[in-house]
């Protein structure tokens, strides 16, 4: 049943470029798809380990910059008169390096920030993203600062025996984003159903209990952060090669907020949640554009976010665990008192 819905949804999404000819809408769908990949990676942390990272855009932006610089080449000086020079490489290698670099950053950020929880974790992650943004803004020699990296080449897919396929049209990019999104979805689905996924959910439900049954909390969280950051880095790389221009504004806090809204409105901890929420909030500005001034759109955006939290705090597609807990509301009340006592202690 669930598999059938997933296949139908993928088939429906795959058919879109065949009947949708409007380039503006197709463009909106491609950028939305890229942000949905970012939202899925955020959901791995927020929905399955319970850690709200508000610096997630940092990994997306690092992926975008690494990928762009790999394919554009760079030349900057180091103290002591050394110069680091890099000749342009094919963009597909940029994607690979984006994934690796973002994953590595995820490792270090995870290692440092998982020492704290709750509000403190949130603030560390925001700070990390802002520091990265300020570096991108001020390290002009490498990143061009506010002048932006321009003329980023499109991704060229190597096809053995047929040479290369450069993704020039919107339709080609649409299918490429769809395929990457599908891979990310299946990877996350596989992960959360594994032993590792159970460990993640275990520590989200009750960290003390998880430790007592032998789950290595820091290791589990760090692995989740690495995978999540790597997927976000891939999304950033897609973004850089599709938009073909990157400036430090990619690190703007509002972009993280967009991903969080996609996850929460869709339903955190549910695999389909970020996809559903992502499509709604990715396309909402498109729907509002003809009827509202840009500032009013953002007012509506904030309003819809608040409304969803008040009306549908579990999201549009609640996770299986949350559906279960609603059915067993008695058991839930008990669990709540227990955690309440534990938090106070």
């Amino acid at each position, binding site marked *: 049943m669930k598999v059938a819905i997933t296949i139908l949804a993928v088939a429906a999404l795959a058919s879109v470029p065949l009947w949708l000819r409007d380039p503006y809408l197709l463009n909106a769908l491609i950028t939305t798809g890229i942000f949905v990949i970012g939202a899925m990676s955020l959901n791995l942390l927020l929905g399955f380990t319970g850690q709200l990272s508000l610096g997630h855009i940092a990994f997306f932006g690092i992926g975008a910059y690494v990928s762009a610089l790999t394919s554009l080449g760079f030349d900057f000086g180091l103290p002591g008169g050394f110069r680091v020079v890099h000749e342009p490489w094919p963009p597909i290698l940029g994607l690979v390096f984006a994934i690796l670099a973002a994953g590595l950053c995820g490792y270090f950020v995870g290692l440092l920030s998982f020492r704290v929880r709750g509000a403190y974790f949130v603030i560390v992650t925001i700070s990390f993203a802002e520091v990265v943004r300020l570096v991108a803004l001020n390290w002009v020699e490498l990143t061009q600062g506010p002048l932006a990296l321009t003329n980023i080449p499109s991704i060229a897919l190597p096809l053995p025996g047929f040479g290369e396929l450069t993704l020039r049209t919107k339709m080609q990019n649409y299918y490429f984003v769809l395929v990457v999104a599908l891979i990310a979805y299946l990877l996350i689905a596989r992960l959360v159903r594994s032993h590792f996924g159970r460990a993640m959910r275990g520590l989200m439900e009750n960290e003390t209990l998880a430790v007592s049954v032998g789950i290595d909390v820091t290791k589990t969280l760090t692995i989740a952060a690495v995978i999540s950051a790597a997927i976000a880095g891939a999304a950033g790389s897609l973004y850089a090669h599709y938009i073909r221009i990157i400036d430090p504004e990619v690190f703007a806090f*509002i972009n993280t907020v967009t991903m969080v809204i996609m996850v929460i409105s869709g339903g955190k901890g549910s695999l389909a949640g970020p996809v559903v929420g992502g499509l709604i909030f990715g396309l909402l500005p498109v729907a509002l554009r003809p009827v509202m001034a840009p500032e009013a759109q953002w007012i509506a955006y904030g309003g819809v976010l608040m409304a969803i939290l008040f009306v549908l705090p579990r999201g549009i597609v609640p996770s299986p665990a949350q559906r279960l807990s609603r059915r067993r509301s008695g058991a839930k009340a008990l669990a709540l008192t227990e955690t309440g006592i534990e938090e106070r202690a």
Partner: protein
Amino acid sequence: MSEFLQHLVNMLVLGGTYALLGIGLTLIFGIMNVVNFTHGVLYTFGAYIMFIVVQQFGLNFFLALPVAVLAGWLLGAAIELTLLRPLRGSDIDTTMLVMIGAWIAMQSGTLWIWGGVAKSVSTPFPDAPLVLGPVSVSWLRLFVLAAAALLIVVTYLLINKTSLGRAMRATFQDHDTASLMGVNVDMIYTSTFAIGSSLAAAAGALLGPVYVIFPQMGDLAAVKAFAIVILGGLGNITGAVIGGFILALAEELGAGYVSSGYRDAMGFVIIIAVLIFKPTGLFARAERVG
């Protein structure tokens, strides 16, 4: 040396308003456990109130400050009553996201009403700065420092010498027990949020005329306020004051001796360093741990 003295003077002026911002947020964060993303909007709001009263109504500059404090108090109380009170008992992530939604909506509202063009406020102070040996400081900045110091003292007395302050401190320690002792916890929450918001508005009203006023000015102010709260420890007013001055010093020295582009990075670097090496803040007493 004279350059260093000048940085110290600038630090004092900046630190006073940072302390106001920090006190407001540490009260809200400490007592209500709400990560208040609207704090920066309240800062912006205070600055725009200053602009409206002085530039649009042509009223006295010194009258505008209490008006901004009052307006911040009212807006804070309204936010608490409409958004936070119905969510009492929700988890911290939900209230934080609602605050983010309110921040986006209110900031966009500011942009919609007043546009994105930066505004400035004319002040009654002479343009020529006060020169004291190697350092100079404008009269406006001296006034900002004095007003900030006054507001800090008033807040300190409010928290430590009044029955409302005693009830707030009791709620911070244990809201259940405070409620059993007859403290109206709902009223305390609303007052706390309103007082914190009015301090943010005051900081904006004071710094707005020093710099320029634009809709996004509060974003960095909010993060700096978080840095100050983390430096000083949750709910610790003295810590917030010292934290405000430390942040101002770090920014001044960072801008002066490293690179002015990284001035605003100082707050974030401090946040990361403190949370990694001393997560309870620099001035936490032993009982706060855990």
